[in-house]
């Protein structure tokens, strides 16, 4: 039985644990055995994005120490995977020993849908959803990791679901971590547009592979369009249909 190490983003751990549980449920259904290192914390993305490289470097080393021996690491967050695969080698470029470990590790870290489709070769996980679904292409998932076909394949495999297009699906939702509250007046306009495109799509739910965008879009919908909601791909695929 294939063993997979769960890389649960801190946002999921603390605020959206259902996404983590759904990830586990889908993996188990496919006969994969998930393990979880309880010493894991945060990948360091907030420090990296704020310019605190020394601090981000410490987070990177902690991550490498914990996950370093795992063969396959899977995470339900594109931006966290991007942090590990893209920014860790850059952060550790002056420390050859650490750099080697970071580079070796980066080839073994997968975004959740990428793992299901590219590694397991699955496109139907046996999920059911009655209704219309539309997909938001999160920036780090699409442009960072180049992942777009994989989630769409999995969506097409959901029984009962109708997939409808989202206008400007690849436009940023306006999250950007601290950008969302430091430049809220710009961020609000961006998320408002995203919400409007979602509503115009006629879909019942919007899905994505990035908890950051989920917090942002759902945060806006909760205030302005409470009848609408965003559901993480893992939850859709688990068939739970429960938002974070």
């Amino acid at each position: 039985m294939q063993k997979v190490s769960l890389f649960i983003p801190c946002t999921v751990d603390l605020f959206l644990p259902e996404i983590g549980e759904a990830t586990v449920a889908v993996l188990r259904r496919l006969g994969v055995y998930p393990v979880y290192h309880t010493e894991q914390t945060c990948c360091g993305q907030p420090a990296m994005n704020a310019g605190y490289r020394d601090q981000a470097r410490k987070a990177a080393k902690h991550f490498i120490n914990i996950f370093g021996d795992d063969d396959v690491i899977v995470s339900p967050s594109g931006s966290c995977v991007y942090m590990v695969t893209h920014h860790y080698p850059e952060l550790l470029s002056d420390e050859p020993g650490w750099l080697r470990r970071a580079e070796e590790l980066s080839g073994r870290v997968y975004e959740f849908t990428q793992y299901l489709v590219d590694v397991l070769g699955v496109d139907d996980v046996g999920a059911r959803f009655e209704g219309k679904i539309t997909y938001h292409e999160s920036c780090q998932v699409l442009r960072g990791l180049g992942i777009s076909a994989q989630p769409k394949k999995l969506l097409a495999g959901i029984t009962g679901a109708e997939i409808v297009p989202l206008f400007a699906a690849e436009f940023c939702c306006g999250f950007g971590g601290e950008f969302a509250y430091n430049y809220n007046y710009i961020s609000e306009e961006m998320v408002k547009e995203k919400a409007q495109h979602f509503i115009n799509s006629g879909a019942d739910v919007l899905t994505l592979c990035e908890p950051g965008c989920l917090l942002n879009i759902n945060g806006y919908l909760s205030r302005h369009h409470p009848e609408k909601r965003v559901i993480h791909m893992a939850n859709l695929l688990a068939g739970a249909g429960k938002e974070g």
Partner: protein
Amino acid sequence: MKIKTEQFNEVAKKEIKNEYARAFLGLLPPVISMMRKQVMASFPDPDAALAYGQAIRAEAVTRLPELLEEFEKNACAQGAQILWARDAKEANDMVLAIAKERNITYVTKGKSMVTEEMGLNDVLIREGIETYETDLGEFIAQQLGRPPFHIVGPAINVPVEEVCDLFMKKADMKTATTDPVELGYAARLFLRDKFHHIEMGITGVNMAVAETGTIINVENEGNIRFNKASPRTQVSIMSMEKVVPTMSDAMHLLRLLCRSCTGQKISAYVSMDSGPKKADEIDGPEELFIIIIDNGRSEFYGDFTAREALRCIRCGACLNICPVYSKIGGYPYGWAYSGPMGQVLNPLLLGLDKTQDLYRACTLCGACREVCPGGIDHPSLFLYYRAKDVEGDQKFKGKRRTWKEMRFFDLWTWAVAHGWFWNLGVKWVRPALNRYARAGVIHSMGRFFEGWFKERDFPAMAKKTFHERWKEKEEKAEPPA
């Protein structure tokens, strides 16, 4: 030109409410960027064409010193005079000296961002030399006393009624009209008169070809050609990164530039000057000065990360795709260069201390990186600037952050690096945070994260985190055989 980069938020908050400008800006990402994409598809292999252009720019930046010398040698051999300016003041003084030695009373100009960077117009006017911008948009922006709103359409945000008023007052227009053709005609009459008697024309440079000593200008209005062909004296000003190795490199970049800029395969006019008028030629300037300006670029050229910014060819594709620019327009960036292009260039040229918001007002979405024909990785540069600012780097004029923020990240990092402390921290923070929650949702946290909660909610911290749930259930479960 006054530098207003420190007023980013103030201006952006005002501009984001400008409905007229927003209507235009809203079209940029879906329409203009789509036009670019469609015309890029006319390359047999668009990705390869983009990568080829990026490689040319990479080579040009890496070989910059030798290419500039080669360009100087070949341009001089063609009869051009090359002047090297260390900074804006030196360059302005050069233009002024050329004008004064020839008793020039007025000059006309083609659209040139580097002259905006130098603040050339202000200097010339102060010294009593009338200066006329001849690009229609730039002419309007100049008469209004505003900086360019967009690199390609400097006055595209100005309502036609305002243009009418302006032309009645300042461009000798006789009858009021909002017909764009009539307005264009009025500007043409006014400017043709200036061209008719022109003695000195000033232009920028899109590309300088090292191999041949040729300068290339790209435009759609024909005004740059007038500025180059009509006067006795032509002064063309370029920032030092405009040089490319060969004519064949220039031709490929030209194809990319026009596609990226306006969604055209080729612009209406492309002019190439290899030196001034030769003895057997019937038109062209009698003397050609090419001013190559550094203005701080050599300072960071030694930094291999920062100098990637010099790959920019000023096409504006990044502005058209940027989700932030398309909400606030060009004014908040406060200087010659706006959008992601300005966010990359302005901090290096003006200092990180004076451009704080430029490299922070970005979600790192990477849309600009994807379209950049120069191959600039804008998000990585913004992260680099943020890091240099946090470090208080002297060369880049980093400012350092508040003591409070720095201590916060230190504490946070200690928690991240110590799993047990992190998990203990969760137990402390949860009740403090969830104090604000109603039915599992936080609508406001008072003065904390005000920006977030203005239009958005946030989930309460889970009663049981994933970590706690796992510990309870899964850890006790038997591993599979």
